[in-house]
């Protein structure tokens, strides 16, 4: 498998303020990689380093096997970017902005501009300053995809899109991905990452805390166990691998990670009325990392 994005101990300080610290990960060709973290965790910093908008304090950033800083300008022929906040030259018409954008690339993008605009229901003859935020976002989507990039950086891309457009957008991203486009998708909304991505990296306070398949994260890591029984105290489940114990009325729920037989033996000691064992949602896994 070809590695498309590679961070190696990537570190960025803004003066003394922390950006990201020792971030390392790889994204393979054709992957839909989710990058999750709360605001201020370093998601945008990571993306902006790969795009050459900011420069690393130390560490390496590679794209298509080449140094993303030194060869950035050439590499960006094949990179599309959709920022979370879109701003364009206000006085321009949509079509002129898209043509200006297209003029930077070596290929003819005209046909694709019209296809994408048609698909996203974007009016091309309006002025940017007259557009609503959602419509500006559509300009951003077309703008980021018009040169048929092989790699896409999406930085919290769904804000401002209504649910219908969000779905269209996700379909579009899936379609691009099916044609081999690698996607790096940053978000703090877990459900959308869960819907779209195969693999996720979780970042917290500038450091990567986990990189895993979504399925692995959900299936192998944690079980959400809820037991209903009379007279059971939370202390009874204080054993290795149990976290987040909470008691509500006559039930106790907790996360369990480890040998499933151990917990089953423990549970058999009680006279249970009911039990549910679920895979946690990404949301819950995520919260777990942030406690």
């Amino acid at each position: 498998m070809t590695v498309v994005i590679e961070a190696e101990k990537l570190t960025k300080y803004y003066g003394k303020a922390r950006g990201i610290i020792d971030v390392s990960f790889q994204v393979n060709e054709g992957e839909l990689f989710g990058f999750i973290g709360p605001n201020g965790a370093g998601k945008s910093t990571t993306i902006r380093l790969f795009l050459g908008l900011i420069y690393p304090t130390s560490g390496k950033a590679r794209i298509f096997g080449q140094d993303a800083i030194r060869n950035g300008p050439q590499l960006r022929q094949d990179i599309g970017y959709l920022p979370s906040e879109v701003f364009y030259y206000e006085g321009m018409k949509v079509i002129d902005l898209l043509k200006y954008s297209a003029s930077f690339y070596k290929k003819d993008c005209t046909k694709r501009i019209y296809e994408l605009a048609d698909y996203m229901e974007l009016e091309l003859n309006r002025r940017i300053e007259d557009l609503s935020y959602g419509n500006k976002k559509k300009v951003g989507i077309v703008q980021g995809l018009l040169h048929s990039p092989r790699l896409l950086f999406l930085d919290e891309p769904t804000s401002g899109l209504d649910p219908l457009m969000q779905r269209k957008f996700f379909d579009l991203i899936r379609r691009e991905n099916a044609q081999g486009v690698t996607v790096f998708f940053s978000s703090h909304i877990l459900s959308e990452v869960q819907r779209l991505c195969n693999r996720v990296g979780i970042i917290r306070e500038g450091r990567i805390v986990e990189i895993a398949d979504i399925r692995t994260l959900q299936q192998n890591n944690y079980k959400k166990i809820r037991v209903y029984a009379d007279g059971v105290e939370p202390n009874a489940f204080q054993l290795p691998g149990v976290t987040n114990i909470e008691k509500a009325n006559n039930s106790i729920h907790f996360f369990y990670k480890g040998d499933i037989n151990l917990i089953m033996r423990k549970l058999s000691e009680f006279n249970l009325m009911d039990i549910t064992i679920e895979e946690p949602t990404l949301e819950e896994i995520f919260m777990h990392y942030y406690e």
Partner: protein
Amino acid sequence: MSTTIFAYEFRTRLRSVVTWALALAVLIAVYTALFPSFAEEAELMKQLLANFPPELLAAFGMTDLDLTTVMGFFSLVFLFVQVGLAVQAAHYGFDLVSVEEREMTADFLLTKPVTRTQILTAKLAAALAGLALTQAVMWGASFGFVNLFREGRPYEPEVMALILAGLIPFQLFFLMVGVVVSLLVRRVRSVTFYALALALGMYLLSAFSDITGDVKLENLTPFKHFDATYVVQHGGYDLSLVAISVVVIILATIGSYRLYRRRDIPTAA
């Protein structure tokens, strides 16, 4: 250089260029139109000015000025033109790259497959083209209106050409200092404020050094390096002063490229 960026930048600035050029051409027309009455009342004029406090005359660069000659009068008009052109060039300089961060369009432009050097070069070239256009209008207006209103009184076209040629380094100074300062600060909130501060500051420095006779201060300001009155009196520039402007321009240019190539672009909003 990117012709795409050049074309966009030039078109965006064109309206401002035309406005500045026309406004200053009108200024030249209005002032030179006053010249015949000054010349006719030459003696009266001299008596009147003699009663002015010398500090006031110095502030307007009129100490060694003979307003009754074409070239003397033109030097005074040219000072006003210079103030305008300084503000214009400083405005373009402070705005050149800071506009992308202020209006948050840097993310758009800088993620395109172009180097920072190409972006800065294209932007500078477009600004220079705008300034060249303005200066061409200044040449036309100066020669045109002076000839229209001098009523056969003698003037020195070579000296006037020399004065006008000085506008190239004069505006370059304000443009490049504007660019480098905009890259030294974190954020340029008001381009107009910075541009007026630089241009008027330099003008006042020149006027102030005339009043106090302080030699050190005047070395800093292009209003002294490219003083029309001096050119009229000496038939040429004080090249040691011109050299200061040239050095500043070169240093500011090198500094601008260095800073822009390594600049971290702040996140929008």
